[in-house]
């Protein structure tokens, strides 16, 4: 039995989580391999929820699979595809099956995904989803009706430390803390200075913050993210470092950079932990951890 994520969070230990993407289809072979590879190396495995608004095997299904195989799942829930009824009933189901950790997200825009003509739901948003969890825990649903058996979750949220402008982001961050966010997994941060600034503002709040680490796989990927992904800023020095890597060694370089960042964050006690996103490269996470000396 893995240690419940909530316990790890409150233990004072440097917390490490990483995300796993569910398959596009019913073939679970690869994702099972990822779970087995990572479940004992990290404190929690996030199951993404139709990430990037692309239809996939459900995060709830992946969480059950993680659970079955002895890992500690963190259920990512977006408000893009389900209204408040569906979200609440999925939360009840999750709890009943031992899925106790939830990451509350608003969700990417439909137009970024692979079903561009779908109806965006956004009945509630990430903050209201956090509040929904706390409401269900009190034995009531959002309609004010009594529940026969209430769930109990460890609920978290996300924050973008390098959002531009940052002030509206910080207001929402504070609201999420007040709504009961026990932990935050941040958007990718590559500039330690910016992370330091963010943490200076965020430290005073009673919540745990895990810095988001997205594995760089090439200089091109870094440039693409700078141009297209909101809230991500890869400094030129890192792009140069990536492009100077020998041919075929870029991934290795990315692993080294990620490991180095994690080590700095841990050594400087900048954050309470890290959340690793090795998009489509989950199998490199053990190498990243090794590079970080973990």
């Amino acid at each position: 039995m893995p240690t419940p994520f909530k316990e790890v969070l409150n233990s004072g230990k440097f917390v490490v989580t990483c995300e796993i993407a569910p398959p596009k289809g019913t073939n679970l072979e690869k994702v099972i391999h990822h779970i087995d590879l990572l479940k004992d190396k990290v404190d929690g495995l996030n199951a993404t929820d139709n990430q990037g608004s692309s239809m996939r095997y459900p995060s709830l299904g992946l969480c059950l699979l993680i659970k079955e195989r002895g890992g500690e799942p963190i259920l990512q829930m977006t408000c893009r595809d389900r209204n408040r009824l569906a979200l609440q009933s999925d939360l009840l189901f999750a709890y009943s099956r031992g899925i106790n950790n939830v990451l509350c997200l608003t969700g990417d825009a439909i137009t970024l995904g692979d079903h561009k003509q779908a109806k965006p739901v956004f009945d509630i948003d990430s903050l209201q989803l956090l509040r929904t969890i706390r409401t269900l825990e009190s034995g009531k649903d959002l309609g004010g009706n009594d529940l026969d058996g209430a769930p109990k979750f460890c609920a978290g949220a996300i924050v973008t430390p390098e959002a531009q402008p940052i002030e509206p982001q910080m207001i929402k961050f504070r609201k999420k803390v007040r709504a009961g966010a026990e932990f935050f997994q941040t958007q990718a941060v590559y500039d330690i200075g910016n992370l330091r600034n963010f943490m200076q503002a965020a430290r005073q709040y009673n919540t745990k913050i895990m810095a988001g680490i997205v594995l760089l796989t090439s200089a091109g990927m870094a440039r693409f993210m700078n141009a297209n992904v909101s809230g991500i800023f890869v400094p030129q020095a890192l792009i140069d470092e990536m492009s100077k890597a020998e041919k075929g060694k870029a991934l290795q370089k990315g692993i080294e950079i990620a490991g180095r960042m994690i080590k700095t964050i841990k050594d400087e006690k900048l954050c309470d932990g890290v959340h690793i996103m090795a998009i489509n490269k989950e199998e490199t996470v053990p190498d990243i951890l090794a590079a970080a000396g973990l």
Partner: protein
Amino acid sequence: MISATEQKPLEEITQSLEKCKSVYLIGCGTCTTILHTGGKAEVLALKDKLEAAGKKIAGWMVIPTACDEITKYALESSEKEIQAADCLLVTSCAYGVQRVSQWADKPAIPAVNTLFIGKEDGDTYSEVCAQCGNCVLAWTGGICPITSCPKGLLEGPCGGTNKGKCEVDPTKDCAWTLIYKRLEQQGRLDLLEKEQPPRNYQAVVRPGRLITK
């Protein structure tokens, strides 16, 4: 206010008219005239194109404001020509099409797509209110988050804000950046710290109806 429209592709229009040999055309003198999607010039251009496609044009008219009750009388005044047609092709917005449909017994076919009811700023037309029935402009600096934010968020920006632009359409400003800036100017940022309850989507039970007297 203006009803923003765009012309449907001719192919779609001719498909809708497949079973109609004779067509009566109805334009609108207000919004579709301003936007050049269905005023007199566009009605005449359609007439030429449909004739070239082998349709008989039983007649045409441009109603000053097709969404108005005046449409009833306009239809009556051209009753004879309308009776000779198999269907009515309407180049007003959908409000006008539904007016025509309300008072004419011939099928009314839309020639334009109605996009939104918006405001005009020179050449730019934009949607600023979705008639949600529970106006929040008092605490959002007069900027509507339900309409201007494509996700309709009430609690602040999503993670998609990119340098003040919106992730859904980078040519548009992020509504929540605008709201923040406006409230900052007004010294009312404290309004944003307040948690909002989930929106009441039944504030107007659709279809909306208001009976006076």
